[in-house]
């Protein structure tokens, strides 16, 4: 059996195979039936099926050879709006020859585009609307400018239910001959929080530990994926050693390539497990929320998080007095 990432190998290839997001899927089926669709905006958290839905829609509309009239572009990778514009133009301007009524261009991570780039994109969308439909995928629809939103049918993807995640996991485990315990599969579902990609990757990584996937092996994976450095960094900050805490933060961000958002998330979950007065916990949560919000707005991860660490240090100090 060829080795692959399971999240990719078991990605549905037609709308019928998508088990969750039923409402979205039924709306997309209408597009297939009528062979017509508007520009779309797929918004939702990671691992909820945005890209999959786009791929399946194209497949169902155009059949197996849909790749001829389908293009996927990632806004985070394409350097600058000029690349997007030229690539889009090249793709969109030539009418289809295979009899397909239009082409589909998926622009992933569209919320990473600057406002200027989005305005330029809007003009491009308008100019080629005859020959090309756009599907923009993003985590936060609020970061897409209003003129684009108003030209798109907006689809909101929600985290998968535990039952849906479980069904997928059991199916994959069976096909890949993965042995698991019940508490193991429950643990995967719990850590995934409705993110199917995370669930499948966790399962695959846990399976590589070469014994039945159980609660322990899942936590080993989660522990490695979420290194203990965050806790060590917090301890340094709480003990007043700000400079070393910042150094740790720096290493995580630059050398290990962790994302600021993931670090904030873990700081948040650590705070509520600490033995400090409840009142302080909520003060801290407020500061963490503010930092997280600023990151979503595109601020510098290290600068924001080190300001947070300095803040945590004084709240903790007051709590100990």
């Amino acid at each position, binding site marked *: 059996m060829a080795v692959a990432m399971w999240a990719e190998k078991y990605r549905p290839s037609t709308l019928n195979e998508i088990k969750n997001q039923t409402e979205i899927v039924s709306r997309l089926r209408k597009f297939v039936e009528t062979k017509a669709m508007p520009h779309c905006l797929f918004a939702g958290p990671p691992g909820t099926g945005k890209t999959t839905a786009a791929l399946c829609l194209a497949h169902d509309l155009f059949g197996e050879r849909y790749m001829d009239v389908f293009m996927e572009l990632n806004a985070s990778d394409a350097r600058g709006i000029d690349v997007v514009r030229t690539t889009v133009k090249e793709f969109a301007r030539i009418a289809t020859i295979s009899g397909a009524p239009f082409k589909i261009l998926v622009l992933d991570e569209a919320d990473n585009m600057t406002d200027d780039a989005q305005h330029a994109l809007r003009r491009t969308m308008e100019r080629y609307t005859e020959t090309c439909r756009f599907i923009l995928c993003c985590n936060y629809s609020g970061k897409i400018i209003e003129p684009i939103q108003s030209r798109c049918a907006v689809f909101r993807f929600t985290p998968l239910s535990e039952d849906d995640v479980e069904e997928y996991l059991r199916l994959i485990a069976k096909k890949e001959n993965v042995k698991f315990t019940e508490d193991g599969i429950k643990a995967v579902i719990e850590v995934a929080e409705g993110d199917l990609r995370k669930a499948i990757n966790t399962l695959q990584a846990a399976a590589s530990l070469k014994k039945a996937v159980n609660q322990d092996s899942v936590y080993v994976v989660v522990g490695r994926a979420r290194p203990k450095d965050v806790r060590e960094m917090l301890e340094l900050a709480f003990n007043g050693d700000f400079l070393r805490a910042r150094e740790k933060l720096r290493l995580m961000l630059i050398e290990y390539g962790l994302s600021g958002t993931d670090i904030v998330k873990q700081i948040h979950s650590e705070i509520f497990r600490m033995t400090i007065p409840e009142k302080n916990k909520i003060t801290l949560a407020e500061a963490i929320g503010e930092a997280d919000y600023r990151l979503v707005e595109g601020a510098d991860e290290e600068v924001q998080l080190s*300001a947070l660490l300095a803040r945590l240090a004084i709240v903790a100090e007051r709590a100990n007095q």
Partner: protein
Amino acid sequence: MHVPWTTKHRPKRLSEIVGNQDAVNTLLNWVKSWDKKVPGKKALLLHGPPGTGKTISVEALGNEYGYDLIEINASDSRTGDAIRRIAGMATGQAMLFGKKRIVLLDEIDGINLREDIGAIDAIVETIEKTNYPVILTANNARDPRIRSLRDVCKLVEYKRLDARSALEYLKRIAAKEGIQIDEKAIEFIIERDEGDMRSILNDLQALTSGRKKVTYDDVTWLAWKDRKEDLEEALKTIFSAKNCLYAKKVVDIVDIDYEMLFEWIYENAPRQLTDPVDRSNAMEYLAKADIYLRIVKRENIWKFRKYVFDMMTAGVALSRERTEPSYVPMRFPERILLMSRTRMVRGIRARVGAKIGRRCHVSSISAVRYYLPYLRIIFENDYETAAGLSRYFGFDEEDIAYLAGDESSTRKIERIYMRLTS
């Protein structure tokens, strides 16, 4: 007289070459084998990153074992005719009492196909006719322009120098030159130059010229030598000013752009303001400055720049309420250093991310976030799957080493990978 260290400390014998022992041995054995009979492949292609010792090992070999080097390198015109003329000497009958010869074609991936017309054909021709060993060097053996050469050459790979052997070597050179230099300072240079020995030696020489002692701080301040005093003065003002206008003036006076100035303040603020409350206030002002800075850059709204200045100078200055005055030297922005030190590993990470992204429909940044941690676990624990995934994603040796973390796992994965692809 100024003699470059790259010349002064150029190895005269093969044993003086740092690293790549396997490659050097292969080279020596192959050249020696000509004494018995002409080997199947009449040319060697030494390939690997710059500064790993490809050319100098040929030179050292020639020197140690008495070969004349017939050399053509990138700075010579390398038209087909020129190559044929020089290579003609290689096809002549070996003279009974003459010195033995090696033909060295340096940096062949630097050949400009348009200007150096017919060069590749001439090289292939030379290799066919030669009576002497022909050695070629290239940075990238996979360069499509030299494809036809690959088939007629035996390939020998030179790898990037590992930090430890480079360090030992450089310590010896420093000792020979009578210079005292921190180990940490040398490590910094090795990392920054990505193990390219030629650049390392040049940098080390530039750094130590005119002094006998070099510390880590000297190295980090290097690019700022002339401006060190100005900048220290400016920062001191920011960390001690009692009124806003005075602190804000620094932006106009200091001769660096304000984003760089921000980095300096951000690095030093928590070092200067040691009281936790002062420090937290200052860091919060810097965080706010950063938010305005993003708006200026992202949305091109220039009017917000004045708030960037307010926050990062006056905001920080007036945060000082409880910290007692004391002298703390200014430090070079450590995160800029870390960025340059980690350039190599970040480069590999970005490449791995891009390879994952192509397969998994995500950007390279998201790939790092959503897949890398799990791949690491697989690469550390399940070599079979790791090898299979390496093929699936098209990972090369460097990528595999990055994911597997240690050398023995990397070897094991590679061995399985070879079996899969053969």
